[in-house]
């Protein structure tokens, strides 16, 4: 078989899904399948029962909250995020990022929850959700909902705060600070290939940066906040020069992996560049500026 033979179930509710997941050893949730099916095809992991959660209604909703934030079901697809008026209204950057993941076929199926649970360091959404200070709502059969800050959610490839028998059910994204904004910057080889380096940022303030979250991805197993750069930004004027000064040298303390696409040295050199560009976009200063 292309895949090793595997059982398949398609529960209608989260309850049923959690029951299946906790009762059966070797059971795993299947969301968009854009990563999991590939992994099974290459036989680097094996699963006995696929619990298809992609059509469970309660996981597919996008809710605009009264505080200006969003509650996004884990099985909302990238294409749905991209096309959602609610997301566009409150968090346009999230819609844009989702709308540029790989190609249309993948965007039709890939889900925000799957993207997070796969937790590939090159995935688009994890650093953005950490920057946006999202909360991940996890459910298990026994224990109701467990809330984990996005910052603590990602541990590494295939490794997150979601435990055995649990499901990531939704993601709460707080409103953007006002005044303030978010930014995102990626270096990749070719329009739709994997990221070599990436940063996401959230800034509060106008004219002066009151607070900032700067998150780097592709530099370690999970997205990481750069507290040093955040501290340097706090209280700084919201100018490209000040941002550049805060970003300078941030690669030096990092120990990113080297591979055939980018060496450790090169990734280090990219860190201040993507961080600076993400923050500049967040302060509305030269988001498009490559300089």
């Amino acid at each position, binding site marked *: *078989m*292309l895949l090793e033979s595997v059982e398949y179930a398609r529960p209608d509710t989260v309850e049923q899904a959690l029951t299946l997941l906790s009762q059966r050893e070797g059971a795993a949730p299947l969301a968009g399948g854009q990563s999991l099916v590939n992994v099974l095809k290459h*036989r680097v992991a094996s699963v006995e029962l696929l619990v298809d959660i992609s059509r469970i209604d309660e996981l597919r909703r996008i809710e605009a909250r009264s505080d200006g934030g969003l509650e996004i079901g884990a099985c909302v697809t990238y294409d749905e995020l991209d096309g959602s008026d609610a997301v566009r209204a409150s968090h346009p950057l999230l819609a844009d990022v989702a709308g540029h993941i790989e190609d249309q076929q993948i965007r039709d199926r890939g889900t925000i929850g799957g993207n997070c649970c796969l937790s590939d360091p090159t995935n688009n959404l994890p650093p953005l959700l950490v920057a946006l200070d999202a909360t991940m709502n996890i459910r298990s059969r026994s224990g109701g909902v467990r809330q984990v800050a996005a910052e603590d959610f990602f541990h590494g490839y295939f490794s997150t705060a979601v435990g055995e028998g649990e499901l990531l059910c939704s993601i709460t994204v707080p409103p953007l600070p006002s005044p303030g904004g978010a930014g995102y910057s990626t*270096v990749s*080889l*070719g*329009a*739709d*290939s*994997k990221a*070599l380096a990436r940063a996401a940022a959230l800034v509060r303030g106008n004219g002066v940066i009151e607070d900032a979250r700067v998150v780097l991805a592709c530099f370690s197993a999970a997205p990481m906040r750069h507290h040093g750069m955040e501290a340097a930004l706090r209280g700084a004027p919201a100018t490209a020069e000040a941002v550049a000064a805060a970003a300078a040298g941030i690669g030096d303390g990092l120990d990113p992996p080297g591979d*055939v*696409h*980018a*060496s450790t040295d*090169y990734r280090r*050199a*990219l860190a201040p*560049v993507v961080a600076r560009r993400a923050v500049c976009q967040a302060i509305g200063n030269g988001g498009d500026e*490559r*300089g």
Partner: protein
Amino acid sequence: MTTTAPPQTETWKGQSIRRTEDRRLLQGQGEFTDDVWMHRQGYAHFVRSPLGHARIRSIDTSRAARLEGVYAILTGDEVREMCPTPFFQIAPEPGGRIAEYPLAVDKVRYHGDAVAVVLAETRELARDAAGLVDVDYEPLPAVVDTVAAADPEAPLLHEQVGSNVVWKGDFDWGDVDWALENADHVVKIDRLHFHRFSSTPLECNAAVVHWDPGTDTVKVQSNNQMPMFASMVIGPTLGVASNRLTFSSQDIGGAFGIKIGSYPQIAALALLSRKAGRPAKWTEYRTDHMLSAGHGNERVFLDTEVAVLKDGTILGFKTRAFDDAGAYLHYEPLGAVIWSQVCCGCYKLRHIHVDYTETVTNKCPTIPNRGYSRLQHLWFLERVVDVVARELGFDPVALRKQNYVQPSDYPYETPNGCVYDSGDLPRSLDMALELIDAPKWRERQRELGRGSGKRIGIGIGSTLDSGTNNFGQARIINPNLPFSGNGEAAFVKLDLYGEINVNLGTTPQGQGHETTAAQVVADVLGTSPDAVHVTAGFNQQQNTYVAFSGTYASQFAVTGLGAAQGAAERLRAEIAEVAAFALQAPIDEIEIRDGNCFVRDDPERAIPFIGVANLIYSNNAVLTPELRERISLNCRYVYTPPFQVPDPETKTGNLTLTYASQIHACVVELDEHTGEVKILDYAALDDCGTRINPQLVEGQVHGATALGIGAALYEAFEYDESGLLQQASFYDYHAITALDTPDIKVGDIESPSPFTPNGAKGMGEGGGAPLHAVCSAIQDALSPDDAIVSDSHNPWERVWRLMRSGEHGEPRGVTVASRSDAAGSDATA
């Protein structure tokens, strides 16, 4: 010959009529190899080496064989027993001692080498069973660098060869020592590296092979693009006569030369089919394709020295070239001579010395890839010209124009006896620069100050696409090879009710042969292309062919259409004869137009094609015995170019008939912080002589341009030290997509070839111009103290490093030695 003038001055030739093929292809009605289904067929899957170099201790197929639905499993040892002889080698001694069988025997020599093949009831089962074949390997040290492979101490791939050097030759024309002594400047370039990549056909390799015990014939339905070559290589190895081994294909989803290389698998499938007593169907997975279908040639040029006069005249160069053929010689070492079709590129260089070494390495075998062997050399020459311009302070445009072969020089004989047929390179360059509005970008380049974070560069790629090979050049590689000339066959007939049908010897893969052949035949027979049916695809049992038949190496417009035209002219002459008989008119008064034959000045006297067909097919008692005997309305013609046998001693001769040119101009913007390269403007100026269908030519130009840009910036096959391929899927191999491709401005000149039946020149390969232009533009954007662009592959990190090389004081890779009296240069010795 024909008896009447063409019926109208307007011809179909030269018009961009819509492609006949597109109707079926766009509606999903094409027939590709995977669409072929045979009764009792099984599905094949190859077991491939996970290591770069290893001895095979043992292969245990028992677990796989126990699976229900597995029909047969074949291993290397069995294959060696079944084959009377290994594949025939083009190389002379010592490379010719390589013994390659359809499956690896005793050793695996690259990551992906096939050690066994399984036939099973379903595709999936075959793959599962292949996973259960247990191979015990003893790993061996690998060699993945061609220069290192030439070292006598390097791990040996083929013990019986005694060395990894499989071919070596000295190409020495003119007097390079004189040129270097008498030059005002000698520019020395340490190392230039042309990297490995492929063309990524949408459809991977595929074949359905049936060794039919009933008729004792082997039927191969495949997407191999050079079936006669495949047949000649595998026939003796299978012990099957060529009249019992038949190839066919209808639609092929891209090939680019790579699909010349599927013959070892086809041979293995034939043996598997014989063992199982069933047809064996195989459709390659993409990862298998990337691992083992074949890569383009990688080449290193060491210690290049270029002789330049102070007025900018480039006298010539010498270099040491190392070509990496991968683990086995598939079509190689023909590449070791094919580059010399363009030994001086677009330039009037008269003194050339290339010390050429071809080695095997623990990498996927190379196979001709679009631009085969010439693009490596043309890239090298374009780097040389750009580096000379930069080091000696010449304007790269003026330097090119000064050294180009000039319009008045044609026919131009190169130092090795090739004859450039026609062209206008200086005007082509001017037009390309106009298309991108070069002065505007020069202005922008100046305006961009330090601190902008960006740099702009303008680059040029000058190439020749040499087409219609003289296979006699194989004798320069191996004087004992009985090959020379070239040719293609076509068959044109008038059918039962007067319909026109054409059969070609070619295996088109998207080039629109049905369309252009119909245009050419329609002109000869005075009708519309709609009235000409060209049989789709190739079938050896029905079509006519010669040993050179196939679709490869930029030649269809010359050889294929030359054959179609010749056959149509023969048919026209026969039709006219029958009409003259029927109308009782002198043959030179017969006119043929719109499916009718008339007597000139008396158009009432006419006979339609159906009447002519009737007389020959079903009413022949009314004819004279002489006509009945001689005329069949079934006309075959073989077009052969006027070649002679080259001289293996001096390595000279006319190696190709036509030289299309492509001059590309490109503007890039570099990001100083990340090394990202963005193409801001791009123009391709193409001159392929008379264009039969201009839109089809443009399509080829677009494809070749995208491929070259992909190779220059994104695509590379690289191996780690143990011989593992680092880019074996699309996750890691970023094949260029539409999103990465800039708008391409296309311009053209038509310099008809005086040597071809229709003025056309072969042009599909395109000479790799984008690689040259992109590298040239990156070079132009760098600072004078930065290193030269010495690699054909420039992903962001490499560009980023180049932009820092000057300030880090890294070696620039080039030095200049100038005579003390040479003005106009501040170069140091």
